[in-house]
């Protein structure tokens, strides 16, 4: 499953970069995030509650930051276990570009799902993922200073 898109955020690049590296900030804007802890400068552990169709599960997992070029770009690599609901894993390439007073955040996500999530949810999971991604960036934009919205392109 692939998702990509971009979003303008009304805050300077350095501020956006700091925010996406701040566990407290991330916990607030990641939809369904129950717990988020930074265990090293490049590693976070998280519990995220997700519902896909008839499935509801807490996904427990780890996210690593790779290829970090502050404050320009990084790659987020993660895997979450939802117990009997299955698992999700994937990576997201995130780039921050200056745009006047604001910042354009662009992302390319490549994700795989497995287990029950794939067996009964694969038809709806793309839509759910697109919605959650939109909510993440909406939340970020709202907190950092709302700007014109651009719907994420699947």
């Amino acid at each position, binding site marked *: 499953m692939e998702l990509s898109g971009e979003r303008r955020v009304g805050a300077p690049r350095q501020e956006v970069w700091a925010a996406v590296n701040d566990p407290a900030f991330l916990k607030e804007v990641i939809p369904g995030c129950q717990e988020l802890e930074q265990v090293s400068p490049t590693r976070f552990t998280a519990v995220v509650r997700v519902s896909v169709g008839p499935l509801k599960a807490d996904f427990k997992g780890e996210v690593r930051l790779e290829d970090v070029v502050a404050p320009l770009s990084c790659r987020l690599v993660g895997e979450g276990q939802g117990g*009997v609901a299955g698992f999700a894993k994937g990576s997201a390439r995130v780039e921050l570009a200056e745009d006047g007073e604001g910042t354009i955040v662009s992302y390319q996500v490549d994700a795989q799902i497995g287990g029950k999530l794939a067996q009964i949810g694969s038809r709806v999971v793309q839509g759910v993922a697109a919605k959650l991604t939109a909510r993440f960036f909406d939340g970020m934009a709202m907190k950092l200073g709302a700007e014109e919205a651009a719907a994420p392109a699947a």
Partner: protein
Amino acid sequence: MIAPGHKGNIGRPVRRREDSYLLRGEGRFLDDIAEPKDTLFLGFVMSPYARAEILSIDASEALALDGVVAVMTAEEMKRLAKPMHTIIDFPGYRGTPRPILAENQVRFVGEQVAVIVAEDPYIAQDAIDLVQVEYAPLEAAVSLEQTLEPGAPLVHDEVPANVMFESSFSSEGFEERFSADGRIVRERFRKSRVAGVPLEPRGCLALPDHVADSLVFYTSTQIPHLVRTALSELLGLPEPRLRVVTPEVGGGFGTKAQFYTEEVATAAIALHLRRPVKWVQDRREELLTSIHARDHIIELEATVDDSGRILALRAEIVTNAGAYSTYPFGCSLEATGAARMLVGPYDIRHYAYRARALTTNTCPSGAYRGVGQPSCFMAIEGLMDRIGRQLGIDPAEVRLRNVVKADQLPYVNVLGVRYDTGSYEACLRRALELADYWQFRKRQSEAEPDGQFLRGIGICNFTEVSGAGSAGWRVRGLTKVPGFDSAVVRIEPSGQITLQVSQAGAGQGHLTTFAQVLADHLGARVEDVVVAEGDTASAPYGTNTFASRSAVAGGGAVIKAAETLGRKISRIAGYLLGVDVERIELRDSRAVVSGDQGQGVSFREIAAVAYSMSGTPLPQGEEFGLEAFETYDPPLATWANAVHIAQVAVDRRTGSVTIENYTIVHDCGRVINPLIVDGQIHGGTAQGIGEALMEELVYDAEGQLLNANLLDYLMPTAMDIPDYRLDHIESPSVDALGGFKGVGEGGVIGAVPAVTNAVADALARVGANINRTPLRPSYLLQEMQRAAAGN
């Protein structure tokens, strides 16, 4: 001898005895059996990975849940039951044992890793969520295309290149004949993966006696005797202490002609814990773990002469066996089935094949209705069309030029297989006439080239292997499939008749058809006959119900037992009536004297003598009772044949397919009950239409099954199925008793190629080449666009 005046039942549309309760919803299926109140329920923890090491299993949270009695892993299970191991005695076969619960490694999504034993089924489901299994995922071999590449991950270390089975054949002088003069026509056909999807998923209920040294095992299966033998071996429980009973079975289609690990686990746990244990799967589990089928690549190349006659044919067949060889058929069935049936009704004298079954990290495959035949006829019938298109000869005409003619029968095909009787050309001609084929071709050639619909017509002319006897299974190396069937006929003291057959119906109407066969061959009234089957405590041993064998193998055994008992009845009647036994004739449950309408005795009066319940003693030398047991071993195979013709319209804007006309002319030899034969053909054809147009189990590259539910696994509804025009030709078998041939699978076998060819014919008009299924709108649109773009 049966009296000439006996009212015959074979060939009559006798109403099915089963329908009065099935249609009222009163059938008793596995889950309808009231379980004892101390019954325990199972829930299986299944792998979410296609291939992974199992690092650890932590069941402590599950065990702490109120109502959970035990959680078992491979560690405990292997002490209770041996792994399943299918031995195929055939060169080129590499079997691998399958543990009842996965040990160390999982090999497909859905493989059972642990089992919860709980006091109610809901607690069992909740506890599944609490078992923590730590896996180390490994790269998986999933599709045939990927697995054929060098360096694909190995599913089993002991199976090099993942080739679990390989077999080849070449007729004498094939290579010289193939390279001689002639035009070469070739195509690669890709048959998608589907499943039988019976309405009732699988399940079983194990009832041990109070000291757990014997077991009554209810299971939704087509093969109770084979299950008993296999269970006995894996559990070490003596076979006489094991009784397997099939309740009403809500559809089998071959899916339940397999023996499964969950059945072993249920029986083993019941004996171990000395408690009744029940397990019923849900639809997701059914789609993940019940055998899958098809998933074949068939490449054909033929040399043909200018008239369209095939001079030599070469087939390269690859089938996807899945993660393990299944029991009892192993992984060779589809590969050899496709290879050996492929020449079908055609007079092809030079043939070579190589057939391979590859193991992959997907659900094991097995014997779904039709087995290799929907695929091999999709290939050979698709090739007939291509020969026609390339040579400018009508595809129907190509078939008529290649088909085995009536005056060639009995015919021995290039593989040495005998066709005793058949109507290959006659069925084709009748079907072409009923389908108004030539008129359609005329209309098609005059159609507006830019209309909204592209119309096409597709033919499938095929043979259906059925009723295979012991020789037929030996030749495939299957050691756990006996091939014979048996019957016990008993006239009770009351004069009523009990018939026990070694079959196990799953909706085929056996209680009706076997009564018809017995009545005609015993001279009994059909209403006096009660048929019972599916319980190993009372039914004689046999091969059970699959591969279109009931009428041929079971029917033959019924005929033999009827004749044996008939001789005893006649002897006693002759003694009672004071006439020579040669003058006794049987009719309407009476023994009468030939030529003397008034003189006779009823079966009831004869029974009174036989059971010593009469003033007249049994004649000297006769044994008490009126019972006969016979087995029947049918020939290597009996060959039914049929022609399906589908006419379709494809919407150029949407790619959707509408079946506008559907014609079937079918020949299953002597018809026992035309209502049931028609029903088999109707249902099978519906399944075949679904397989051609929409059904497909989809795995992603990681081996995740993406549609383990019936919202996403599309099946046909009544809206997708046309009215059929159906006609019969009867060419009774001369090799098989009774003249019967099988009819269980023909519908599917004919429909998949006929519909595929019809759509391919329609799209060939715009230059598109259709060679795979399912024929989904997205695929058809893509091919039409590709053709329009000129590549």
